[in-house]
């Protein structure tokens, strides 16, 4: 039993934390809130120099071939500092999509650029989403060309490479992933306003855009599920990191802020609130660890593990992001306070890849499926 990260992975964490402390202070994130930059270029450059985008990309495709546990470590650290960079879009989504659905030529062509950070990739998976009364998001392939609108697409305006989920217009309606270069004719990209401007999202419109299907052209329904499961684990680590950082921020404040002649952290209303946050974070951490194991070992438990990690981490981060503001009181509600960074990001991450509702459905579906196969509930045994 060695249910923990290894010493090497912990060293990677220490290095990452130190680097991010120096290069991704709250001030860096705030610049995104107050300005128009699509991401922090200096930070992005820095992590590219450290080869982070290539962490889990095999060396044969230009990565450093560390593995997914290392990527989980980095995700957690990036989550802690609410990093304003397109890392998740590029490393968890686009590179993974190429990795699991691309053919050899496509991998050779795109993965090295993504691994080095020279190119930023993203996925546009929104399918059949209706926004408001008029905006139905759906992308269709007709005569080999993409048509339709996709939103919200993370980093859609800056991506050098788009992986788009689109359904063929034929009666079969097969869902496939397509790789698109945004320089193609017929693409319109515009930033849309979201609750977390530190991670900009776009609406991308396709008007007869040339696109190449990933892989050998079979249906990707199951691969997209797999892609989401895998990315969910990494996003859950980002959430876990954010939840830890928000709890630390609240705890520090509760210890140092005095009211009624005593630290507010000596009031049980505050203590127990933060103890509850700690409990949620621990439950999230344990589920995340299990999911990291499932991801890194390509275990059959991945769908269940990913959904569980996602549910627990969403619950944890949303709770403490809100209660961190409450612990701070009025000052926590000001624009100047860093509390809002966690609050915005927690909700953004909670809805990325689908709401917790959709993950709960996936979890129960999988558990039902498992239970109908085996008489007893499966587990690690």
């Amino acid at each position, binding site marked *: 039993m060695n249910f923990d990260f290894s010493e090497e992975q912990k060293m990677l964490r220490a290095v990452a934390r130190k680097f991010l402390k120096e290069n991704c202070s709250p001030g860096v994130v705030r610049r995104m809130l107050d300005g128009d930059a699509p991401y922090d270029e200096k930070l992005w450059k820095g992590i590219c120099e450290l080869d982070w985008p290539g962490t889990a990309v095999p060396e044969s495709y230009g990565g450093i071939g560390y593995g997914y546990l290392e990527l989980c470590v980095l995700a957690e650290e990036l989550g802690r500092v609410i990093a304003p960079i397109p890392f998740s879009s590029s490393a968890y989504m686009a590179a993974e999509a190429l990795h699991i659905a691309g053919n050899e030529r496509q991998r050779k062509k795109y993965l090295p650029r993504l691994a080095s950070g020279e190119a930023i990739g993203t996925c546009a998976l929104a399918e059949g989403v209706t926004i408001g009364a008029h905006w139905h998001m759906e992308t269709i392939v007709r005569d080999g060309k993409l048509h339709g609108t996709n939103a*919200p697409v993370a980093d859609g305006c800056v991506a050098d490479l788009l992986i788009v989920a689109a359904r063929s217009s034929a009666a079969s309606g097969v869902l496939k992933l397509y790789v698109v270069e945004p320089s193609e004719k017929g693409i319109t990209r515009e930033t849309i306003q979201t609750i977390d401007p530190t991670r900009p999202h776009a609406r991308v419109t396709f008007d007869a855009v040339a696109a190449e299907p990933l892989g050998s052209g079979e249906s990707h329904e199951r691969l997209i599920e797999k892609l989401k499961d895998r990315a969910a684990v990494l996003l859950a680590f980002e959430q876990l990191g954010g939840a830890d950082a928000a709890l630390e921020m609240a705890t520090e404040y509760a210890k140092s802020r005095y*009211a*009624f002649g005593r630290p507010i952290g000596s009031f049980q209303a*505050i203590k127990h609130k933060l103890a509850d946050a700690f409990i949620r974070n621990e439950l999230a951490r344990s589920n995340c660890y299990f999911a990291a194991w499932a991801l890194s070992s390509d275990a059959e438990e991945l769908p269940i593990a990913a959904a569980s990690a996602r549910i627990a981490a969403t619950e944890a981060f949303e709770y403490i992001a809100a209660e961190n*503001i409450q612990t701070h009181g*009025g000052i*926590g*509600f000001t*624009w100047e306070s860093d509390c809002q960074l966690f609050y915005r990001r927690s909700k953004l991450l909670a*809805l990325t890849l689908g709401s917790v509702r959709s993950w709960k459905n996936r979890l129960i579906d999988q558990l039902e499926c498992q239970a109908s196969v085996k008489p007893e509930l499966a587990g690690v045994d």
Partner: protein
Amino acid sequence: MDFTDTQEEAQFRQKARAWLNANASRSTDTTNKFKVGGGDDAEALREAKSWQARKADAGWVGIHWPKAFGGRELPPSYTVIYRMEETNYLVPRGYFEIGLGMCAPVMMSYATAGQVKQYLPRMMRGENVWCQLFSEPSAGSDVAGIRTSARRDGDEWVINGQKVWTSGAHFSDFGILVARHDTTLPKHKGLTFFFLDMKSRGIEIRRIKSIPGRSNFCEVFFDNVRIPDAQRLGDVGQGWQVAVTTLMHERLAVGQASGTNFEDIFALVRELELDGKPAIKDSLVRDKLADWYVRDKGLQYGQYRMLTKISRGEMPGPEASVTKVVSAVQVQQVSSFAMELMDVAGIIDDPRLSPQSAAFQLSFLASPGYRIAGGSDEILRNIIAERVLGMPGDIRVDKDLPYNQLPTGAR
């Protein structure tokens, strides 16, 4: 057990409604409901002042005030009836409530007859806007912990320090202020209460930007601001008692935290689809909707119960804290859940794209403020436990120590 007005009340309500119909437009369900820091430009202020003047001239201001102070001396229930009616109309809000609800009563109790005559009529007609200067950076929940100092200098007081969360300070003409005149006394005993001209020299006002953006909250800095001793309200050292009575006057207010609530999400789930079915057919949605409806109605019917008390001449108790705790938390829950129902699109807060003009997203960003402003969830639970249930107070380490010897941490 009924909702029927007395004959007099019914007549009054009818008149109010008729006047409102003639002078304002009715608010429909979810239109124009959400405004961020609404009316912060000069035009909106002018409109508000003009509305207030018409309203005062028609006799709808100071309804239960003594005639001596320019009121109609009707029972307080009539004020509530007018307010209930007014909530159904689109009228300027957020300018005069603090003046009329908190500053006016304290002036009536503590100012001289001459001062009352000088200031109240203009306040009623909206010619002057008033604000309230209590909270400080180091004294939020613990209001009695304020540091802003008042030093006596002959016939004047010299004020130094900083206030925060002062609503509308930037468009206010006058304000009421608590300050500390003696740091060697225990915290509740060293306070003195004043009113002052907000245009006095040495006052600097900065707008506070909050999470959802612009707000009407301000920071107010005092740099040797001079107030005539004649503008002291109550005795020297009586400031805490004066402040407490001021806060009690707010109890007549009808109203909950603004933001998206049951009716908004009910409308949403009647339109939205989930798993191929109308969202309202989903049992998780139904479960939450039912809870929210019941809480919403519980608060509304609770206000009828409060109004009944007021009609009988009883003062409503701190039970009103219930409304605040329940509605603030509910706004956060409702908005958060609505966003979840929108799935990946829930993050979009562009009013042109998101349902109901992104009201849920906006409420989500604004809701943390509701849970803090006007008494945090935690303070209100303390109030309910201690004042309603009669439970013992927290252990106090700050009651009898001289203010300047209180532990303040690393501040």
